[in-house]
């Protein structure tokens, strides 16, 4: 008999992982929550051995025809290829895209493949990594610092580095380092146009989103100018200011101009930026007129405007990032967002307050984010209901894979499915990233897409599992059903829903055949494939229950 509500351990696990499995709940019950948290907060640098092997074994097919004309020169390719771009350097990635004498040496399939490989590795890690908290946070950061592969090929060549060297490397680290890494990443430099910013009229796109989306947040935006200070004493400045205005954005855009990527730009008759595909600070692109940002005078940081040598102009941009990343409003914005992601749309303020305090106390720590996570995860509230967060379509598929013991097989079918909801990394076009309000994901279209994804994912080959081997051996419909509901949901579903599933299973010839062991005297009349298909249908239908939709 299943319990009538989720266990405290299951509630906590579902909040900070891609889906609690029975083995996860059992582990927490055995070693204790605090020990589980500590283990999760101290993962090895790379993947655990099983996940590493799955990524090493992964093959994605690539097929294109040969070409030998003015458009390009390449041989035909048709192979199952490993995920080779994941470990590449900036130079190697740039080489995939670079033109030689305006003649392409590789077709666009090779470029698109970079996105496919990073996405495939992300799916595998999210579903199978033992270090689920890290996966949860990498997913959070990738969506917080959203970039879309559709923006340009320069964003695409930056994706392996973005995932590996920015998000994974800093997921539990210092927020300031994370923002600094992000500002220097090829993907973000091109996604928000900062790589193209030039001294004359600097591009404001990155500066604006740095403040509005990445650090201080939309609630801190004051409009065109900062309103006159009406409090007592002088107006607070720097990391304690009341917010940011368009004037701050303008100054930040000047300070951050010159941050670009070396792709062979001709600077003068005698100087060219050697095409390495790497971040570079180019002084001639730097606007020298940056002034007051958040009440701090940028003009006195770095070189004087009339100095010939402008190489230290990069210090102005670094100062902007430092103030923004360390700002008090940034602490409440980011911690609030993390706690909402974990707990639901009306997160407990006590947990946010404790997390903000830890965040601010640890601004100099290289483990700042880890300390904040420890505070949140060890709060009393983490194991307490209610369970109100709606799983997004992507989370739901990964939870479905985890709880059914399916292996994620990255195929185009899976990408196609996610494109419908746009709910997978690098698929959201705009810099705000995915809405985190439950209601948003409950649209008619969103629900239908999720159901159909579950109903087809196993047969389409996006998930690999033999459910005849995974299901318990029994001759009771109820026992079969209770076992699957127990694994996937962990407690009783509605009586009406249970009755409908029971009727479906009892009237299914495939499931009846599965439940009735074949003996020597009564040979099987229903094929094992039919049995398998009907078991797939059963678990997919369980995943459409509201009890599986909330975590």
């Amino acid at each position, binding site marked *: 008999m299943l319990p009538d509500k989720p266990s405290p351990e299951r509630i906590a696990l579902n909040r900070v992982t891609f889906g609690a499995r029975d083995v996860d709940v059992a582990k927490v019950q055995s070693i204790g929550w605090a020990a589980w948290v500590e283990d999760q907060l101290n993962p090895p640098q790379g993947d655990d051995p099983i996940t590493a092997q799955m990524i090493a074994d992964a093959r994605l097919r690539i097929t294109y025809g040969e070409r030998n004309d003015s458009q390009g020169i390449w041989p035909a390719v048709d192979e199952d290829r490993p995920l080779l771009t994941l470990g590449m350097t900036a130079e190697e990635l740039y080489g995939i895209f670079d033109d030689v004498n305006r003649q392409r040496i590789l077709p666009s399939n090779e470029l698109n493949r970079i996105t496919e490989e990073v996405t495939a590795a992300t799916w595998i890690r999210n579903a199978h990594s033992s270090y689920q908290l890290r996966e949860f946070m990498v997913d959070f950061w990738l969506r917080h610092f959203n970039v879309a592969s559709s923006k340009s090929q320069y964003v695409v060549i930056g994706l392996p580095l973005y995932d590996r060297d920015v998000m994974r490397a800093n997921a539990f680290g210092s927020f300031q380092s994370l923002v600094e890494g992000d500002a220097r990443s090829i993907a973000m430099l091109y996604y928000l146009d900062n790589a193209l910013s030039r001294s004359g*009229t600097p591009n404001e796109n990155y500066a604006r989103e740095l403040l509005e989306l990445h650090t201080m947040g939309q609630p801190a935006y004051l409009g065109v100018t900062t309103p006159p200070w009406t409090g007592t004493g002088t107006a607070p400045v720097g990391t304690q200011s009341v917010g940011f205005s368009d004037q701050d954005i303008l100054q930040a855009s000047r300070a951050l101009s010159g941050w670009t990527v070396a792709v062979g730009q001709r600077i003068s008759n005698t100087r060219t930026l050697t095409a390495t595909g790497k971040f570079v600070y180019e002084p001639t692109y730097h606007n020298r007129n940056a002034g007051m940002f958040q009440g701090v005078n940028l003009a006195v940081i770095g070189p004087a405007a009339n100095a010939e040598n402008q190489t230290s102009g990069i210090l102005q941009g670094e100062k902007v990032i430092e103030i923004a990343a360390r700002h008090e409003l940034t602490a409440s914005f980011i911690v609030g967002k993390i706690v909402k992601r974990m707990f639901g749309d009306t997160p407990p303020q006590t947990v946010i307050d404790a997390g903000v305090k830890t965040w601010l106390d640890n601004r100099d720590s290289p483990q700042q984010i880890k300390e904040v996570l420890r505070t949140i995860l060890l709060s009393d509230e983490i194991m307490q209901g209610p369970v109100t967060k709606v799983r997004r379509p992507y989370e739901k598929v990964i939870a479905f894979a985890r709880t059914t013991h399916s292996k994620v097989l990255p195929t185009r079918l899976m990408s196609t499915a996610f494109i419908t909801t746009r709910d997978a990394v690098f698929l959201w076009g705009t810099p*705000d990233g995915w809405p985190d309000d439950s209601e948003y994901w409950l649209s008619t279209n969103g629900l239908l897409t999720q159901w159909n994804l579950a109903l087809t994912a196993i047969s389409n080959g996006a998930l690999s599992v033999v459910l005849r081997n995974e299901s318990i051996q029994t001759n009771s419909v109820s026992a079969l059903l209770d076992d699957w509901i127990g694994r996937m949901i962990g407690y009783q579903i509605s009586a009406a829903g249970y009755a409908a599933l029971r009727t479906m299973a009892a009237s299914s010839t495939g499931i009846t055949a599965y439940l009735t062991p074949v003996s020597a005297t009564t040979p099987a009349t229903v094929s094992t494939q039919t049995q398998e298909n009907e078991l797939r249908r059963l678990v997919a239908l369980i995943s*459409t*229950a509201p009890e599986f939709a909330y975590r």
Partner: protein
Amino acid sequence: MMNFSRRDLLRTASAGAALTAISPGLKVAFAADATQVKDTLIVLFLRFGSDGLQMIAPAGDTNYISNRPTIRVRTDGNTPGLGVGTMQNTDFFLHPATTDLKALFDQKKLAIVHAAGLRTPERSHFEVQERMELGANLNEKQPSDGWLARHVKNLAGTRPALSTIALSSNNPESLLGFSNSLAISNTNAFAVSGGDANANVIRALNAGKSSYDVNALETLNAITTVQTGLRNLTADPTNYGYPGGALTTSLRSLASLLRMGVGLEVAHIDMGGWDHHANLNNDFNSRASDLSRSLGAFWREIANYQDKVTLVTMTEFGRRFRENANGGTDHGSAGYMFVLGGNVNGGRMYGTWPGLAANQLFNGDLDVTTDYRRVLGEILVQRQGATKLDQVFPTVPYNPMGIVNGLTASVTTATTGSAT
């Protein structure tokens, strides 16, 4: 019978209303049937700041020429702008990629409202989009629901189940607070895999009271209606010149819903990709072309329904007047609106041109001279029979510009308001 004759009267009267609509402020107090929704209203939101100075360019203006040296629309050369007339002594030209829009303008089906938007100092996509969708400016009381939601809730009586549809993967913020709006991104793909056998189990699983259950049930009912409707439609193999892509899918789905007569009253479509901080010439061109060709094709596809449709576009803001060093434009102020429909007084430009001299700009950019809510209010009253406009836009008085024909109903409206 009573009801029928009243409607008949309204229909007869509406011909005369075309003439009176040109005199703003004249209120003909017919007792309009509040449930009489005349048209399907289609709101097309051009997300992320569509550049009105490129879409409808004052191409010969000396300030325009000097502030947009590399990206400007030209009056001469291989691809000149498409002239649409003069406003306050300034000549305007549609972007050269919008030949379908120009044709609709010439057929007097398309009206242009220039320098329209929300007059706010803010230049955040997300803030201004939200304000426009909730329908309140910075200094005004912030509503908890969207303007379209308030409008639909104010239409008396029970609306058909499929009266309000977002042709997107999700509902927009303007429909926030109206729980019966549906999101259908593609009618052809709107079906449960495995059919009724699976749909019925899902229905039983979701018979509870949570918002997930409620939405699930609504989804299943909508799927049944749409699939039944599609089965009864004659297949239409014509392409009509659609360019393909997301907007094409939305508009073709919308055309199917119109043809199957599900009682569609309000439709919402998003078109993204207007945030041209760099390479505007190339990227704006492809967006403008997609918009123009898609609307041209949609107009041809709904040939039998043109008199029952009013489409209006909006965008959160235009772009910075001066181009940046990347041949792009950063976030600016006023945008524009297109109004397309069988009852639109098209072939004209509406609004007031604020000018582009330094002292005419608003924080350095094109000033907003027509509040977007004024345009929407006129359409809601004239084409959708809204009578309580004060509840939709509490701060913007009803002040029709004569963009659409209709019947000026008795309407309660905000009496004060700073909006232009």
